């Protein structure tokens, strides 16, 4: 291979990095929009969570594991996914405690101090936010598990040293 091709391979790709850094905040803003408008337009918790997870995947693909693990680590992903499930089931169980059915949002009007229709809308929004949290974290941790093979980069060398001893 000639020298120019080798130079292309070895240099860092500044175009992709810069464009990703410009686009990622807008992608995350769009995902919040999709979650918030899930009642009366296409979208909802799952779709918004997937878009948010895709923005994190884009960050890790362009900037590398070492640079971007301070933004979102695997431990934080596990915490976020269980927080999302907790929000979802917490709202459902709160409706049970208020003598309704599971996820019967109308019952929330007793504690939220608003009328029935508003309570239903807010309950659905809360559940969508929980679903969005869970889907974002699970998408991200699936990506990390596939791309790193379940082993954190940097720990491979330690394992190799331990095995050679």
């Amino acid at each position, binding site marked *: *291979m000639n020298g120019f*091709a080798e130079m*292309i*391979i070895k240099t860092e*790709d500044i*175009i*992709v990095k810069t*464009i*990703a850094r*410009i*686009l990622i905040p*807008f992608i995350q803003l769009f995902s919040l929009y999709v979650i918030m408008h899930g009642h009366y337009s296409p979208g909802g918790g799952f779709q918004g969570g997937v878009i948010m997870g895709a923005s994190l995947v884009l960050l890790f693909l362009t900037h590398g594991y070492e640079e971007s693990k301070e933004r979102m680590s695997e431990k934080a992903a596990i915490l976020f996914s269980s927080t999302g499930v907790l929000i979802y089931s917490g709202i459902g169980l709160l409706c049970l405690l208020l003598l309704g059915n599971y996820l019967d949002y109308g019952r929330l009007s007793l504690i939220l101090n608003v009328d029935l229709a508003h309570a239903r809308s807010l309950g659905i929004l809360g559940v969508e936010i929980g679903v969005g949290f869970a889907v974002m974290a699970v998408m991200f941790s699936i990506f990390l598990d596939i791309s790193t093979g379940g082993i954190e980069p940097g720990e491979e060398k330690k394992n190799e040293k331990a095995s050679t001893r």
Partner: protein
Amino acid sequence: MSFMTVLSILCLLGGFFFFFTATIGLLRFPDFFTRLHATGKGDTLAVFLSLLGLAFYEGISLTGLKILIIAIFMFIAQPTATHAISRAGMRSGVKPWMKENIES
């Protein structure tokens, strides 16, 4: 037929023309990089023109503004994606179509 409708029809026809030429380039060009050259440039302009035509048809409204934002997003993201794909091809050792690389 109003002026905006004629403008939108012209933009959509231009978009279809560039989609057509990009597809011909994808099917007829000899190797990876020249095909990427055809689809990267042609599709970017075609998507931009098609969305612009739809925005002209919609007029000044929230939907038209959303379509314009999508068009700007595509105009930034699509050349970057083409660039990344061509770099990936170079990294994994795809040979460009040159005189010394032609075998058959």
